[in-house]
C-alpha cells in the first residue's frame, strides 16, 4: 500500500533555489479563486496519477549509480587493488592494465584512491546535510510556527548568510579555522543551514494557514501536539527533497574546498584534492579526470533522485516527468 501523499506542498517547496525575493503568486483575486475551488481540486486529483517514481529509467539509473558508489565505499578495501595511500616509485604512470586510472604524483594508484574517496565523501556529505538539516529544521520550525520576533531574527540571520556567495563564506570559515575535514564540514554546515531553515519555514507557513491545523486546534489539540502531528509531517517533504539535492551539493562543495586546499588533510584520498594535484600538471590528465568523473556521477545521482522525489511530492512538477 502506498503511504500517504501530500496534496499540496508550498509552491516554492522544491525549487533548487529558494533564496532571494519570492515573486508574488500570479493568481487572480481571492474571491474568484474561492468560487473556483470545485474545479481546481478536481483538477488536482487528476494530476496525481499512479506514481511510478521508482520505475523511471533515470531513477533506476541513479539508484544503480548510487548503489555502486555505496558498495564501493563500503567495500573499498576489497574493491581497490591497492592501498590508497601506499606510495610507489612509479610516479605518474598513465592508465594501464595494472593501474586502471594510472598513478599520481606519489605513485599511488588513482583507481584505488577514487574508490576510497567515496568512503570519505559520501559519509561526510551525509553528516553535513544531516546536521545542517537538523539546525535548519529547528530554526525553520521556530521561525515559521512562532512567527513575529523569532521569525524576524532567524530570517535576518539567514539573509546575512545568503548575502555571501556560499563558496566565499565557506572558504573564509575554513581558512580561518585551518584546513581539516572537521573544519570543512563545519564551514559547509554554516553556509548551508539557512537554506533548510528557509524551506522549512515556508512550508510551515503554508501549513500554518491550513484548515486542518485550525481544525485540530479547535478540537482542543495543544500547540505542541499540533506541531508534532500536523505541522512537522507536512513540512518535511520539501526538506527531504532539498536534502537529497543538497547531498550532491555537499559533495561538490567539499571537493571545491579541498581543491582550494581547505579540505581534509593529505594523504586522505579526497576527490577535490586529487583534482588539485592533477591540475598542477595537465599532461597527467588521468590524475584529475577520474576523480572529477567520480564527483560528477555521484552528484548526478543525487540530483536525479532529488528531482524524482520532488516530482513525486509536488504534483506541479509531475509534468516534468515522462
Amino acid at each position: 500500500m502506498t503511504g500517504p501523499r501530500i496534496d499540496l506542498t508550498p509552491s516554492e517547496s522544491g525549487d533548487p533555489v529558494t533564496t532571494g525575493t519570492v515573486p508574488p503568486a500570479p493568481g487572480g483575486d481571492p474571491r474568484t479563486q474561492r468560487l473556483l475551488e470545485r474545479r481546481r481540486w478536481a483538477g488536482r486529483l487528476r494530476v496525481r496519477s499512479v506514481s511510478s517514481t521508482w520505475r523511471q529509467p533515470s531513477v533506476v539509473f541513479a539508484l544503480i549509480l548510487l548503489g555502486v558508489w555505496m558498495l564501493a565505499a563500503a567495500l573499498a578495501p576489497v574493491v581497490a587493488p591497492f592501498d590508497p595511500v601506499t606510495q610507489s616509485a612509479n610516479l605518474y604512470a598513465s592508465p594501464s592494465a595494472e593501474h586502471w586510472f594510472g598513478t599520481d604524483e606519489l605513485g599511488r594508484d588513482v583507481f584505488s584512491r577514487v574508490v576510497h574517496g567515496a568512503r570519505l565523501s559520501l559519509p561526510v556529505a551525509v553528516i553535513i546535510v544531516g546536521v545542517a538539516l537538523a539546525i535548519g529544521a529547528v530554526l525553520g520550525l521556530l521561525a515559521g510556527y512562532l512567527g513575529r520576533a523569532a521569525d524576524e531574527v532567524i530570517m535576518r540571520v539567514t539573509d546575512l548568510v545568503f548575502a555571501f556567495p556560499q563558496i566565499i563564506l565557506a572558504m573564509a570559515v575554513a581558512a580561518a579555522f585551518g584546513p581539516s575535514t572537521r573544519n570543512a564540514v563545519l564551514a559547509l554546515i554554516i553556509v548551508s543551514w539557512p537554506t533548510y531553515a528557509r524551506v522549512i519555514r515556508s512550508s510551515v507557513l503554508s501549513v500554518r494557514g491550513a484548515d486542518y491545523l485550525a481544525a485540530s486546534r479547535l478540537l482542543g489539540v495543544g500547540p505542541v501536539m499540533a506541531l508534532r502531528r500536523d505541522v512537522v509531517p507536512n513540512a518535511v517533504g520539501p526538506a527531504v527533497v532539498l536534502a537529497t539535492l543538497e547531498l550532491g551539493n555537499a559533495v561538490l562543495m567539499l571537493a571545491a574546498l579541498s581543491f582550494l586546499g581547505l579540505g581534509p588533510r593529505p594523504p586522505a584520498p579526497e576527490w577535490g584534492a586529487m583534482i588539485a594535484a592533477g591540475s598542477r600538471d595537465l599532461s597527467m590528465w588521468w590524475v584529475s579526470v577520474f576523480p572529477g568523473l567520480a564527483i560528477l556521477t555521484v552528484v548526478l545521482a543525487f540530483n536525479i533522485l532529488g528531482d524524482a522525489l520532488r516530482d513525486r511530492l509536488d504534483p506541479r512538477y509531475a509534468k516534468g516527468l515522462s
Partner: protein
Amino acid sequence: MTALLDVRHLAVSLPGAGGQVLPVIHDATLQVSRGEIVGIAGESGSGKSMTAQALLGLLPERAQVSGSAVLDGNTELVGRSGRAWRTVRGTRIAMVFQDATAALHPMLTVGRQLTEHMREHLGLDRRAAEARALDLLDRVRIPGGRGALRSYPHQLSGGMRQRVAIASALACEPELLIADEPTTALDVTVQAGILELFDELRRESGLSVLFITHDLGVLAALTVRAYVFYAGRVMESGPTGELLLRPRHPYTAALLHARPHADDSWTLPEDGVTRPDEAAERRTQPLVTIPGSAVSPAAAPPGCPFAPRCAYAEAACTGELPPVTEVRPGHAVACRVLPDLTEVPA
C-alpha cells in the same frame, strides 16, 4: 438547413501515465444551429471542457480524436493541422473560458488583448482596431471607453473581466462561440448580468453559442436545447424546457431532484408569521440524493455508465450500451429502461 456545427461520434482519449490511453469522451453527437444557444450540462469530469477543447484543437498534445465535427457544412474540425486551425480559431469559432482571471493575460492591457487578433485576422491597423475595440466594450457594457482599454485585468472586477473575455471572443465576428462555464466563478447577481449579455448578443447579432454549465437553472434560463453529459457520453438531449421539466433519463431526473428548489415561489401565510416547525418539517429530507459518486470517463463501467447508481437499472443495463431513443422529435435519451419519472422517488 444544415446545422452550423454538426458533431458526430466524437471520441477523445488522452495519454495517461505509463503509456495507457485514457478515454475522456466516448461518443458525443451534438448540433448547434445558427442563432441558437445550445447547452451542455453535467457533473465535474464528465467531459464538457474536453468537448469544447476538441472543437478548437486545444486538447493536450498527443490526444487522440476520432469522429467528425463539421462547421457550417464545409469545414471538418477533426484532424486539422496546427496551421489549418488558425483559419478557424478566433475567426469562425471563439471561446470564452470559465475563469476570466486566468484566461486574460495579467501583464497585457485590455486593449492589447482585444485588438491583437483583430489586427492579425482582420488586418486592421492600430487605430481601426482600437476603434473597433471601443465598439465591442460598448456592446458588452463596459464603461470607461479608452480608459478601460488602457487598464490591466487585475484592475477590473470579476464580472468585468468576463465581459472583456467575451468581447475578445467576439472581436473577429465568429460564427460560433463556445462558452465553457463562463459564470461559474461569479456571484449570482453578476451571473445574471452575463446571462443577459449572451441573450442580448443572440437576439441582436444572431450569435450561435455552445454554452457549457453545470447549473441546470442557468441551462433553463438561457438555452433552447441542451445535452446532458455523464462520464463522457451524452445521456439525454432535447429542447431545454422539455428536458428539465419532463426528463426521461434517470440521470437527468436525479440531477434535478438533487438541486435545491429555488423555482417555486413561496408566499407568506396570511398572518405574515411563520412557525418554526413548518421549516423543520420541510427539511426532513430536503434533497433527493444520488447514491455513490460520479465516475470519470476513463473509469466508467461497461454498459450504461450510470447503471451502478441508477434506481431503475436492470441487469441488461450493465452489459451493453443503451440504445438512443428519440422519445419526441428532437428529444433523445440514451436509456434502455426509459422509466416513468413523473413520480419523484421517496
